């Protein structure tokens, strides 16, 4: 029979997921199966998506869930519809908070990626020869998204481990996850600490850090006094690197949508068509991309 595979993601508007879909589609073309792309921003939509896949005769699906705690429900729903299940990006957990081992997963730990951000900022502070006690840090936060908390906490852990004073880290809570919200939140922090001349910034993704960088520009802090490192590496970050002169957006940690999209789809296909079970756990890593290096980094990761 024809193979039909679902690819369900939590935020279809995000470029990251666009890329995952794009690469999964490539696998579909190569192997000749049908890929069904569904966006499911909340638990209820996930349930409906799985039912829908079952109804149209898919044999399995890959999912990035809106919340990892949805685990048991998704596992049950998949079983009820007789669908094979794999997760991507974020790993399901059970009621006890432990990962559900039985579901094959490809992803990257949110804490780890945050740590990479923290480490690269710490290294650049060192490189610029700044005195850490004179530097302020903007933590662009969006605490209702668990992944976001894990990422910034990872960054903070790495920074403090490198000797950054915890009391210099200021919270800039964004009301939404877009650049404007981050810009407004960060502006307040900057104005509250008008005496601080050098700033670093980190957050959930590139948009958040970009907002903080825009804020530093709007209050007149020169680019060389700002180090912002984002997460993602899609257009918003690349556009920044393409600007004629360097901005405070120092770098971004790119994770590869290629592996996440292409490989998961391929593995699922093998599982269905040839009964070859995928590896239970594959962890990918993020790579730091800078203004000068992003082209190569992207090539290495197979994007472009």
């Amino acid at each position, binding site marked *: 029979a024809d193979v039909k595979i679902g690819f369900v993601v939590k935020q279809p508007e995000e470029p990251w997921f666009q890329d995952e879909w794009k690469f999964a589609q490539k696998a579909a073309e190569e192997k000749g199966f049908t890929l069904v*792309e569904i966006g499911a921003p909340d638990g209820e939509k996930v349930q409906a998506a799985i039912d829908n896949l079952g109804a*149209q005769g898919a044999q399995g699906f890959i999912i990035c869930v809106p*919340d990892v705690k949805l685990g048991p429900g998704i596992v049950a729903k998949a079983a009820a519809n007789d669908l094979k299940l794999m997760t991507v990006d974020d790993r399901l957990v059970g009621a006890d908070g432990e990962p559900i081992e039985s579901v094959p997963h490809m992803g990257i730990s949110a804490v780890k990626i945050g740590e990479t951000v923290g480490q690269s900022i710490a290294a650049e502070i060192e490189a610029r020869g700044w005195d850490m006690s004179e530097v302020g840090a903007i933590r662009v936060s969006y605490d209702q998204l668990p992944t976001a908390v894990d990422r910034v906490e990872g960054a903070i852990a790495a920074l403090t481990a490198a000797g950054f004073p915890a009391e210099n880290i200021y919270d800039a809570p964004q009301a939404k996850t877009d650049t404007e919200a981050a810009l407004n939140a960060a502006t307040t922090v900057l104005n509250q600490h008008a005496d601080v001349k050098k700033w670093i910034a980190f957050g959930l993704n590139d948009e958040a850090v970009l907002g903080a960088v825009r804020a530093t520009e709007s209050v007149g802090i020169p680019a060389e006094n700002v180090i912002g490192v984002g997460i993602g590496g899609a257009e918003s970050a690349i556009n920044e690197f393409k600007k004629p002169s360097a901005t405070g957006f120092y770098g971004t940690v790119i994770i590869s949508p290629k592996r996440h999209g292409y490989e998961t789809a391929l593995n699922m296909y093998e599982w269905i068509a040839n009964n070859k079970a995928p590896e239970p756990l594959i962890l990918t890593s993020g790579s730091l991309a800078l203004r000068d290096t992003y082209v190569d980094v992207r090539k290495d990761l197979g994007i472009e």
Partner: protein
Amino acid sequence: MNSLKKILLGDQGLVVIFAVAFAIVSLTVPNFLTERNILGLLQSVVTIGIVACTMMFCLASRDFDLSVGSTVAFTGMIAVIASNMTGSIVMGLIIALLSGALVGAVNGFVIACFRINALITTLATMQIVRGLALIVSDGRAVGINDPGFYQLALSRFLGIPTPIWVMGALFIAFGFLLNRTVFGKNTLAIGGNPEAARLAGVNVVSMRIWIFALQGLICAVAGIMLASRITSGQPNAATGLELSVISACVLGGVSLAGGRAAMTGVIVGVMIMGIAENVMNLLNIQAFYQYVVRGLILLIAVLLDNLRSTASR
């Protein structure tokens, strides 16, 4: 010929248009008219459908409730936490229902007694309640200890999942409440002409409080069903639900200017929203185009209904 026109343009015209559309979809979209898909479709509209029952009353009485999404999330959360804490699912459900009714009653009280605009009041409580949901859960989903809880959503009766039964029962109950009871008629009267209702001795203040309390209670029912279906209490669940529910109602002919409402219309409105979503996924329409298609369907549905009702004048 003439009787066909009568059917199309009559009170039940929307239902007829809907039936025709349904037939077309069934014939043209592969996999649509299968038992599995229809059950899946029905389950996907359970939350909207349940909440629409009371939203209909709210709108019919010329009010507005933006806090339903937050209340659904909050009560689902409470149901899980309370079940976990007391070790009894029944206790958990009771506490959740009570807290839902409480949220609603507070809305109603503020709106009716201080005469504050319903939009602003419920916009405020929408944020407050969402905040509370986030605070009690620390922003993370809360898992369910007793797997019995899942059975609320997983169990079936005559092959049909419980949530669908619940939704169906509420449709019937609220349809009856609207058309056949003093409560329903008073609601329509308040919406149609609040001043006249008041001067006729209808206790407008207490009616409004009741309507909102009922809305909160029903949100709790939806919240519980949702928590059971997604097997956890999620503080971020059901964001944006308010707009979907209000659209479903308006699509079904409920007037935002109050005084006009019908349960069949609302059911059709809910179904149109659900089918649109379902069919787009069955047809594998790309995410970005889904936005456009969803918008167009909404427009066409009201446009058709409008043509129908002006033609009949």
